[in-house]
């Protein structure tokens, strides 16, 4: 007893330290949970070039907020956009508008004009190869005589055949956005939009950013509406999704936390008719939570919001130890003092802790950093709560201090008539039926590893996103081609080979276009070929120039002068020169540059049609160094692989726990494990029958279910040969609470959490109901 007092005192010291540390953490504002949903994704050790391309494309997209302010007429749209902007300008540190510089880019076309000879649209390149000299002479003459023949860049003699104009026009069509009246302008059939490209200054995934940005955007929206009543505002950006997910998760934290607490309080009061046990259990959970938070922050320096969501769920499990002790105290002889009772319960308590920690540690085996944190957080919480029960409960709950209520007694009595499994007809029939159902369910089970099922953005965000990408025709950041080569020239050549394969798909409307550095800087090889083509087909003494000269009454000297003028063009730019120039700025993310021995670039795709995806992904087949990258399916396949791996981990955990139980329960060890295993099988079968495809989060829940369910088996086995009322009460209380807390996760609108919750709900309920069936009654043991 003395030893225990000392232990309790020591533990009180530890708890004081925890409280102090937590007070410091909360007081100094260090507890700011992450809401970055990407932090839940696996960190893959893989191809560094591919990784870099991912971060380039994601970086380019992540901090952007794009807003379209539209109205049926341009003036209202402009007015609304100005009002919108005025609100944003009040907080310049948050969202910055990418402004239209007037003078800086005045001469940006100049470097291209200086080597324009090799620049032409791909259609013109094809025409050069096929069309006769007369065609080009006609083209030049019509350019010569018409007053308004479309855009003209420089003098006639700089571009007599309109090749450079064609190239510039082709480049302009890489975006439908145009400047107009100092705004950026884009139009749909009946709406005129002002485009406001915004850059978020603080990181999009910080909770504080989301809390500041959302109200700002709301008031900007209101201001725009006030300025022009018919305004339509379309906004998109990663931060909007992050904020929506964050709000949802926050809401769910409080529902789960509060729901779980109310459940516990209600059940405990009904059982013990006293608030003391509730207080004690809350105390153990509180210490568990504080301890987990302290250690996690010390270990990782930060904590993810979803870790906290699971922390809230932890309440449902950490109570088992307290409940188990209290129920045993209730049922035990008053002659036994609490410390001795604890010593008697120790093996069972230890087993339940180890089994649960094994269950949680299964989460740590996943590739998701968020889930690893959750595993550590949960396991730590359990250990702290468990130690609290051990240290304090025996001293605070003396013999005879608890009295059972009528509710608890009536429930506990229900164990007596519970059906038991044995070598009889009824057991065999019910087992056969269950086996058939399980087989039927499993045979129908589908799988779904789509990453998009991890999150459900609000429908209005999705609708805006779709509208926006249609209007802006911007490339997707998640699907593109990665092109590699031994040097820049080879990369450009391979891009060109790829583009050659993409052109027919553009014609077939499978995509609207592509963005690539080689659009701006042709490879030296292509440049030389085009120059040769121009020299050959257009600039010879007997070619189109001569036909033109004849028509306009010029002589051989003019032909020679024009040719010399055109050929005076310098060499074409290198990609590095282009990227360093102002014109290259919007395209820098496409050029990955040197990476060890390889050079790499991205070919981005605009206006992807889902129907054409299958064709598109094979467009680069056979071109060396060209790789199709699809981040969505990439991640989905990782999820799928880990679902498989986790399945094996669960199976392995069963074996491990069985090994753990074997020394203590011998040939009855299976009885502690079978209810959980059976409940898991039935739960999964139910998903199969309900047509819900299995995903990683179902399997993760099965892992957790093992940790929870095996407790109940252990409780039952620990009181083998007795009437079982005491463990039955503990199981009932604990299972009801687990269901309350995890069942609430089943209400989550996040499909992943919902899958997790539903599995826990069904699984825990089933374990609860069938665990007595596997325990032997006194008669069975005696007989």
């Amino acid at each position: 007893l003395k030893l225990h007092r000392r232990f309790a005192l020591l533990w009180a010291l530890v708890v004081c330290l925890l409280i102090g540390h937590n007070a410091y953490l909360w007081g100094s504002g260090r507890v700011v949970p992450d809401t970055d949903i990407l932090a839940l994704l696996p960190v893959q050790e893989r191809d560094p070039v591919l990784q870099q391309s991912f971060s380039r494309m994601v970086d380019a997209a992540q901090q952007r907020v794009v807003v379209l302010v539209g109205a049926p007429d341009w003036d209202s749209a402009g007015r609304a956009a100005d009002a919108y902007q005025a609100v944003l300008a009040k907080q310049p540190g948050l969202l910055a508008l990418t402004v239209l510089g007037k003078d800086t880019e005045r001469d940006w076309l100049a470097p291209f004009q200086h080597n324009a000879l090799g620049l032409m649209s791909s259609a013109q390149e094809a025409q050069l190869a096929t069309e006769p000299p007369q065609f080009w002479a006609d083209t030049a003459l019509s350019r010569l005589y018409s007053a308004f023949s479309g855009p003209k860049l420089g003098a006639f003699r700089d571009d007599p055949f309109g090749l450079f104009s064609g190239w510039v026009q082709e480049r302009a069509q890489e975006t439908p956005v145009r400047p107009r009246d100092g705004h950026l302008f884009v139009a749909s059939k009946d709406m005129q939009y002002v485009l406001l490209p915004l850059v978020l200054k603080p990181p999009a995934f910080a909770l504080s950013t989301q809390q500041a940005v959302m109200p700002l955007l709301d008031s900007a929206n209101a201001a725009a509406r006030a300025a022009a009543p018919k305004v339509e505002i379309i906004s998109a950006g990663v931060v909007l999704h992050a904020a929506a997910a964050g709000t949802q998760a926050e809401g769910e934290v409080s529902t789960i936390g509060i729901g779980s607490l109310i459940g516990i309080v209600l059940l405990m009061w009904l059982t013990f008719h006293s608030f003391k046990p509730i207080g004690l259990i809350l105390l153990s959970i509180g210490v568990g939570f504080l301890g987990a938070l302290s250690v996690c922050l010390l270990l990782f320096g930060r904590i993810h919001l979803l870790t906290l969501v699971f922390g809230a769920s932890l309440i449902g499990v950490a109570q088992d130890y307290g409940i188990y002790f209290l129920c045993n105290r209730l049922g035990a002889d008053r002659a036994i003092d609490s410390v001795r009772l604890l010593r008697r319960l120790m093996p069972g308590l230890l087993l339940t802790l180890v089994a649960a920690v094994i269950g949680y540690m299964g989460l740590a085996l996943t590739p998701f950093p968020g889930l690893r944190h959750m595993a550590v957080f949960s396991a730590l919480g359990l250990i702290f709560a468990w130690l609290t029960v051990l240290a304090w409960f025996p001293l605070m709950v003396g013999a005879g201090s608890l009295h059972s209520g009528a509710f608890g007694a009536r429930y506990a009595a229900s164990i007596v008539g519970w059906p038991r499994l044995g070598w009889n007809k009824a057991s065999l029939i019910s087992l056969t039926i269950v086996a058939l159902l399980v087989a039927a369910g499993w045979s129908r089970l589908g799988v779904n590893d789509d990453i998009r099922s991890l999150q459900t953005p609000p429908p209005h965000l999705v609708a805006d996103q779709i509208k926006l990408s249609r209007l802006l025709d911007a490339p997707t950041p998640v699907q593109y081609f990665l092109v590699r080569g031994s040097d820049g020239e080879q990369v450009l050549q391979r891009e060109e080979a790829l583009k050659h394969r993409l052109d027919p798909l553009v014609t077939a409307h499978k995509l609207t276009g592509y963005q690539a550095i080689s659009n701006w800087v042709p490879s030296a090889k292509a440049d030389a070929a085009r120059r040769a083509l121009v020299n050959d087909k257009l600039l010879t003494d007997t070619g189109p120039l001569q036909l033109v000269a004849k028509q306009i009454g010029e002589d051989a000297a003019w032909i020679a002068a024009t040719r010399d003028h055109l050929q005076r063009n310098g060499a074409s730019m290198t990609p590095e020169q282009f990227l360093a120039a102002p014109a290259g700025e919007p395209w820098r993310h496409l050029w990955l540059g040197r990476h060890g021995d390889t050079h790499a670039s991205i070919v981005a795709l605009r206006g992807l049609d889902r129907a054409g995806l299958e064709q598109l992904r094979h467009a680069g087949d056979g071109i060396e160094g060209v790789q199709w990258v699809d981040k969505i399916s990439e991640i989905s396949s990782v999820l799928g692989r880990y679902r498989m791996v986790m399945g094996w981990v669960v199976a392995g955990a069963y074996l491990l726990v069985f090994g753990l139980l074997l020394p203590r329960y011998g040939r009855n060890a299976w009885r502690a494990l079978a209810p959980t295993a059976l409940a898991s099988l039935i739960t999964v079968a139910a998903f199969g029958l309900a047509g819900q495809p299995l995903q990683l989060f179902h399997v993760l829940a099965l892992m957790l279910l093992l940790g929870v369910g095996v407790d109940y088996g252990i409780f039952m086995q620990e009181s083998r040969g007795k009437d079982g009322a005491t463990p039955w009460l503990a199981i009932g209380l604990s299972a009801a609470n687990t269901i309350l807390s995890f069942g609430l996760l089943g209400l989550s609108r996040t499909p992943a959490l919902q899958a997790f919750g539903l599995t826990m709900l069904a699984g825990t309920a089933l374990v609860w109901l069938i665990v007595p069936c596997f325990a032997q009654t006194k008669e069975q043991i005696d007989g």
Partner: protein
Amino acid sequence: MFVKLCRLAAIAALALPLGAQAAAPLAAIQAMLAKPAVLCGRFDQTKTLAGMKKPLLSQGRFCVVNGKGVLWRTLKPFPNTLRLTRDEIVHFQGERVAMRLDAKQEPTVRMINSVLFSLLSGDLGKLDTLFEVDGSVDNGSWKVALKAREPALAKAIGAISLDGAAYVRNIHLNEASGDRTDIVFSDIKTGEGAISAEEAALL
């Protein structure tokens, strides 16, 4: 990214920067212009190009139909037609369509068309949003110099000057590159009868 792209587009196609207030002489010029619903006539164009000894002469007919668009038909020395309507610009080289730009593809098409429409009909109020307009009125005729407000645009199209009375009589385009275009309008007719059946079918 969009911004840079757009600067490119600003040059590839015309852009419209913020307009200023119309100056006083402009009101007087506006009052002198007839602004008929249909306006057709003959044009004679002289192009003086850098590196060429002789100027290039051409002539043809043009029609400006309010609410429909502009038809610009070069008849000599080569048949060559430009048609500008609300949603597209089509360039016929003889019978062949040499170029077609539609508004869906190139959103500035509508703006280009409205500028050309304004230019040919002398609608200075609209041109004012795009150009610095410097005008003078003298004895029943007027003269106007246009300078693009957007530097990039100024570089692409250079200086424009117009003169006329009830209708635009002359247009001079002076490009920064040294190329120069002078257009003289004559034989101007207005009203429904001004446009021939052939032209009406084309527009």
